């Protein structure tokens, strides 16, 4: 369990490093704020790097987010996903797929009085990395899971 969390964290950190080297983490704050306000930009993103940019920069890895999804999926049209956040003050949960033509799959608003938990089903175009990202008052966090898809959900 501990080793698993560690390798996941390392993978995320490597991802964040790669994003930083592309200059994505250093986006101007103004643009990040605009994206948060209008919100349209996140769904317009066509690549994972663009999506992270529209979201205001790379999330920090967090072991306080639990992402449940099968490691191997027969049909990418129906990938069951459950996210539970133990981050205090969670007010937004996002699902992102690195490898989908539109990487931001869905954005959930979690007001006070609603548990930081959501379950849904998403499409994956092929094998890729699924990210569950969470916003709270402290910032933007994520956890990731590699998923192998046998049949594309895009058809």
């Amino acid at each position: 369990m501990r080793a698993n969390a560690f390798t996941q964290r390392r993978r995320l950190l490597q991802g964040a490093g790669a994003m930083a080297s592309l200059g994505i983490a250093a986006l101007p704050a103004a643009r990040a704020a605009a994206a948060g306000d209008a919100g349209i930009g996140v769904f317009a993103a066509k690549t994972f790097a663009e999506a992270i940019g529209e979201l205001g920069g790379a999330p920090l890895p967090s072991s306080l987010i639990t992402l449940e999804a099968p490691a191997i999926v027969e049909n990418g049209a129906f990938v069951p996903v459950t996210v539970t956040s133990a981050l205090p003050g969670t007010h937004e949960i996002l699902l992102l797929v690195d490898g989908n033509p539109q990487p931001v799959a869905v954005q959930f608003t979690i007001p006070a009085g609603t548990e930081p938990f959501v379950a849904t089903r998403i499409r994956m175009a092929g094998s890729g990395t699924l990210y569950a990202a969470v916003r709270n008052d402290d910032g933007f966090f994520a956890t990731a899971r590699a998923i192998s898809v046998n049949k594309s959900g895009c058809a």
Partner: protein
Amino acid sequence: MSQAIRIRTRREGALVNVQILMPHPMETGMRQDENGRLVPAHHITDVVVTLGERKVFAARMSIAVSRDPLLSFRLSSARAGQALRVAWTDSQGQTRNDAAVIA
């Protein structure tokens, strides 16, 4: 005419578990019909759930949400008898809303 949203609420201790199924084709715009023509994108973009007058959950969806979107979440402050209303809007401007009473 769209099909009714199915809403199920179940009490789990202090929490109320809500399950929502919204019948909708959720066309991605990448699928071909039997004649090889692309079927235009048609998907739910926004879902808002209110408990009485209060917004308790919202979702903004891309084409990457599966056909007949399924949502499940938990309310920590819902009382029996309160009305839970679910409303969606799709990319063609169609809307639908349905309600259930908290169990």
